[in-house]
């Protein structure tokens, strides 16, 4: 019975950690989405993208614990592409990088939701 109690406690701790992790990831992805959506080509400054980049770098270590490397790498690449093309916000490359960033963020936050498509 001791091992039963121990495994239940471990399971409860894991569920708590998963819940906190889910909330954390949703907070980070929501913040990044809002910051990215607020970037318009009429009103763009390189500091906006730099802020996004610094925020992402601050949180990437913890996000990597539960998010696949390919997805975190995709976000990093998108942000760097946006930085590179910040001087030409109308360019297709900038728009592509922005769209890719938003799509990857959606994918990550969807991964934390309980749905049939996620489970299957």
């Amino acid at each position, binding site marked *: *019975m001791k*091992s039963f109690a*121990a495994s239940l406690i*471990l399971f409860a701790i894991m569920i708590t950690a998963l819940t906190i992790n889910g909330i954390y990831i949703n907070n980070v992805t929501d913040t990044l989405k809002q910051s990215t959506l607020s970037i318009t080509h009429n009103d763009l400054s390189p500091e906006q993208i730099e802020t996004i980049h610094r925020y992402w770098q601050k949180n990437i270590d913890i996000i990597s*614990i*539960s998010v*696949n*490397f*390919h997805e975190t790498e995709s976000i990093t690449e998108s942000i760097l592409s946006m930085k590179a093309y910040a001087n030409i916000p109308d360019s297709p490359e900038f728009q592509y990088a922005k769209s890719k960033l938003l799509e990857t963020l959606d994918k990550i936050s969807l991964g934390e939701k309980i749905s049939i498509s996620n489970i299957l």
Partner: protein
Amino acid sequence: MITILFRTFIIYTILVAAMRLMGKRQIGELEISDLVTTLLISEIASLPIENRDIPISFAIIPIITIVTIEVATSVVLMKFPNLKSLISTRPSTLIKNGKIDQKELRKVRISAEELISELRQQGADTMDDINYAILEQNGKITVVKNADSSPVTATDLGIKIQERGIMHILVSNGYINYHNLGTLGKDQNWLIKKISKENCTLKDIFLYMMDDSGKSFCIKKEKK
């Protein structure tokens, strides 16, 4: 590459803790679910070690979940034995009173050749020796021989032999096994006095054992 080293340490520690939590039945693989659990856990654990792209949590979460399910299932089955038939088979009697049950053999899909091979490995040379052969839940075959073919015991000869019990290791490589000492109802002072009668100290001892009748065996360390 150094991350692989750390991941290996972490996952190894988690695996040992998981097997410890699941207990001796997991190592013995008593049931189908025990075997499935062991196979699953080993596969899952190896993934983040081999592939750095996979987060380590992708191994930790399934392992903890499987351990919890396994331990909870074994507790529930202990409390409600009727549910056992849902996840495990019953032992099958393949030979009863020396006669092969051909219907049971077909049911468990074992051929006569396989059965005879197993019986030979159990030391049963001829069919005349066998009373029962049972296919256990863990896949092993147990053979019960006829009384005529079984080795003679002291009871058969009407001889009274003193019970020796089992050997308890009290000192191993200079270290006292307090658990076994407690089992015999003795303490450290008693042990030190016993050892001193062997003209040596604790440090000199490789192995010191005692059986339930009080007979002791002492093996000293070899000089290097």
